[in-house]
């Protein structure tokens, strides 16, 4: 299979259209299962009671906010190296979803922090670096919407997302490098999770649902961007006539 074929907006547009319903369906199903486990199946926590259930949104949202930024940096690097138009469109299509998840992570964390820690917000390394990530997303959105020429817009956005990506490992390791109020990771790549089995299941299913949502929304948005930018090209005119 020739993957480079899909680097062209004209051939990616129909492919994205075909994929969207599948990812949307997966999202709805997984979200239903995930929320059901979160609210009805997962047991009450021994020290936090029912309040801990916010982690089923908080943790997957935080993961996604970091991961989406890495994907944006990946597309940005590809775009700068190969000069592909689609890369810039993908980066731009993912940014609003990333900003949404970063915002969700901050809000749910704050709602949970008040009853558990005793404060809405503290300026510790984890919270502050996550807030910076949210601002990076907003900065990317502001920057790209301020530039009219699409080539220059993509380039400026790509550089911002590549520079900003250094913040992602800082967020991830902040709880190890500094004394923070935020607890360490319950689920990590290096050791067994310190979490009951059903709780972990619920969280992972929610994470997969968020993945599905991100992909479906990303594809939907990239289709709109393709239409906007390629408005004057031959293939769109032809399709529009048909």
């Amino acid at each position, binding site marked *: 299979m020739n993957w480079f074929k899909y680097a062209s907006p004209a051939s990616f547009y129909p492919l994205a259209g075909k994929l969207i319903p599948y990812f949307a369906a997966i999202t709805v199903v997984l979200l239903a299962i995930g929320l059901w486990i979160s609210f009805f199946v997962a*047991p*009450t*926590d*021994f*020290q*936090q009671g029912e309040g*801990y259930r916010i*982690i089923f949104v908080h943790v997957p949202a935080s993961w996604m906010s970091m991961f989406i930024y890495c994907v944006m940096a990946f597309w940005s*690097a590809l775009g*700068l*190296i*190969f*000069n592909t138009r689609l890369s810039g469109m993908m980066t731009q299509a993912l940014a609003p979803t990333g900003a949404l998840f970063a915002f969700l992570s901050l809000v749910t964390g704050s709602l949970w922090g008040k*009853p*558990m*820690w*005793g*404060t809405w917000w*503290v*300026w*510790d*390394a984890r919270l502050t670096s996550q807030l910076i990530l949210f601002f990076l997303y907003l900065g990317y959105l502001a920057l790209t919407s301020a530039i009219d020429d699409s080539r220059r817009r993509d380039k400026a956005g790509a550089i911002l997302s*590549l*520079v900003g990506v*250094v913040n992602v490992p*800082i967020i991830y390791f902040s709880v190890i*490098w*500094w*004394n*923070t*109020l935020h*607890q*360490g*990771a*319950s689920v990590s790549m290096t050791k067994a999770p*310190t*979490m*009951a089995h059903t*709780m972990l299941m619920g969280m992972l299913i929610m994470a997969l649902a968020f993945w599905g949502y991100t992909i479906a929304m990303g594809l939907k948005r990239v289709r709109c961007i393709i239409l906007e930018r390629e408005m004057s090209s031959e293939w769109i005119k032809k399709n529009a006539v048909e």
Partner: protein
Amino acid sequence: MKPRQKRLLFIVGGMLVLAVAASFVVKAFRSNLVFFYTPTQIANGEAPHDRAFRIGGLVKQGTLKHEGVVSYFIVTDTRRDFPVSYTGILPDLFKEGRGVVAEGKLENSGVFVASEVLAKHDSNYMPPEAKAALDQAKQVEETSKTLKMN
């Protein structure tokens, strides 16, 4: 070299420089950007003397006392202890043997007078039954240890 290979090198080089710069910044921040000091650090004189700072550690078992609205407890990191007094309502997760972060000033008398107390909790999530089973297992282990000693 093709132009795109040049661009690849340029980006990889740029990212490397950026990573090195970021790691220097992080390293510099590691000593300055502390959210709290442990009792051992305070005993070693690492905490600021003239302004408020935060103390973090575990609430020592059996040391929490209330006198009206004032609470007294000892914060420990198992090596050093510091007595803390706090006027106000303690957060829900505040318990003996659990993590705590208190902001305030160290008085000359050696008592840390806190203006804010936050509960720091660990990364363990489990149902109460599992916790009870764990505690029971620990108790059995300890009793068998003491039996062996005798």
